[in-house]
């Protein structure tokens, strides 16, 4: 069965088409305000990319903050359940998914069956989120997409002590004005994000086999630093980690067909 997953995130809206458990097509665009037309546009794109007719889609699932705006869907699940489903299905050995999205950090502890046993989520405060990284890397004059290339030239790590995004931004500007190298400051930012993320994840001490999902997981300089700070075993999510919740939704839509 072909299933369609839609995830309306705070910063990005995503759509995927799964043929059973294989990813056929995906599309991502920024979440603006017009969620309904964004979803329509993304759905058109994945359908035409995959050469699939709308009628051939067996089930539609939606997750994220705009789930209620997606119109009629077969499955509407919260992001935590979807992230867990995607992690547990493709990486059956793991027992924790740590998702660092645009505006949140979520650690989901899985039981032996891959179901959600417990989770922690910070979405009240930008600290350590993608937005935090974006605000601060912009203050150094480096775009989020360029963090990995910027950090390769680092010879040291400039420590960032503030956890608050607003205060950390001032701290970064102070470092820039003091003549610190952008690469060294960016290394400090990545280290700061990794510390905040791993501090949350480590509170689930039994979560010793984990994967990282969400947009921040794409940044190797952050991902490797998180791994350095965690004691458990890391496994890489097999798709674009921004799509984890969306893929999880699509998997759940085809649940009768698939044994998670």
């Amino acid at each position, binding site marked *: 069965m072909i299933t369609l997953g839609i995830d309306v995130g705070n910063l990005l809206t995503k759509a995927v088409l799964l043929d059973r458990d294989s990813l056929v097509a995906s599309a991502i665009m920024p979440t603006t305000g017009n969620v309904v037309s964004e979803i329509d546009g993304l759905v058109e794109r994945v359908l035409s990319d995959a050469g699939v007719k709308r009628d051939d889609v067996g089930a539609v699932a939606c997750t994220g903050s705009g789930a209620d705006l997606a119109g009629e869907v077969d499955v509407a699940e919260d992001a935590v359940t979807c992230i867990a489903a995607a992690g547990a299905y493709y990486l059956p050995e793991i027992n924790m998914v740590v998702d660092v999205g645009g505006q949140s950090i979520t650690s989901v502890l899985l039981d032996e069956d891959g179901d959600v046993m417990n989770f922690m989520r910070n979405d009240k405060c930008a600290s350590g989120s993608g937005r935090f990284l974006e605000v601060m890397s912009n203050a150094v004059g480096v775009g989020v997409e360029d963090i990995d290339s910027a950090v390769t030239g680092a010879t040291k790590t400039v420590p960032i002590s503030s956890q608050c*995004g607003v205060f950390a931004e001032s701290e970064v500007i102070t470092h820039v004005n003091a003549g610190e190298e952008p690469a060294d400051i960016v290394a400090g930012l990545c280290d700061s994000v990794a510390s905040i993320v791993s501090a949350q994840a480590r509170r689930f001490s039994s979560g010793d086999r984990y994967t990282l999902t969400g947009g921040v997981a794409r940044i190797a300089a952050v991902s490797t630093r998180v791994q350095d700070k965690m004691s458990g075993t890391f496994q890489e999510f097999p798709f674009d980690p921004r799509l984890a919740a969306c893929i999880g939704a699509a998997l759940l839509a085809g649940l009768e067909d698939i044994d998670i």
Partner: protein
Amino acid sequence: MPFAGIDVGSLTAQAVLIEDGRTPMLKSIGVRLLSHSIRVKPNPLESARTVMGELLEESGIAWDDITYCVSTGYGRDKVQENGLAQANVSEISCHGSGAHALAPQVRTIIDIGGQDAKVIRVDAAGDLSNFVMNDKCAAGTGRFLEVMSRTLGVGFEDLGPLAFRARGKVELSSRCSIFAETEVLHYLQKGMDKSDLAAGITKSMADRVMALARRVGIEKEVMMTGGVAKNVAVRSELEKMLGVHMLAPSIDPQLIGAYGAAVMARRAVGSG
């Protein structure tokens, strides 16, 4: 014989000179208070030197004329080590002693500065009895209002009057300054009224301060100090929430830390 206080904050630095009636030429007017405020320099020592240097120049007083100087705020120890002050005292005690010197009936001081917020309790003698502070998160500090006024496209000083004129209130769902910025931008794009947004921003600010105040308790009388005390809307929202009428300081509330330091300087040489 002037006594001096220097307060270097995160955004601004203040210098205060107080001269009491024993200065011959000032005998007729009793206590005279001179003050000056600047935007901070990259390092606290430079801020201290500049703010006090400019005040002395304006007032025609020489460095050597200062009887005793107390430094407070950011880098207060450095300011003292470099000989600009004879002693340094924490800004918490200085706000306490400054507020108490202005109004001896004060028991609670709500000090909201550029990068922190404090609720300070003092006893009848003006000595510190308890305090709570937030300097970890920009929410509930001057920085939050600064970010918000920039987002609204209005001056920092205009935010209070703007909120005061509001007929409605758009409450913010985000506490985090970074998320609130996104939220306010979104409301602006939807064409919502700026003054209604300013009222929502004020409410959010007051909610954070109240959360802090609850941890230490509020005893009457209450005075607000620090730069944010000049925001009329935040003041009035807090008065409503606390159910008290706050004391109005007779000097600029942003000067009270430096004034308290000068009061401590006078006390240190035993003339106060």
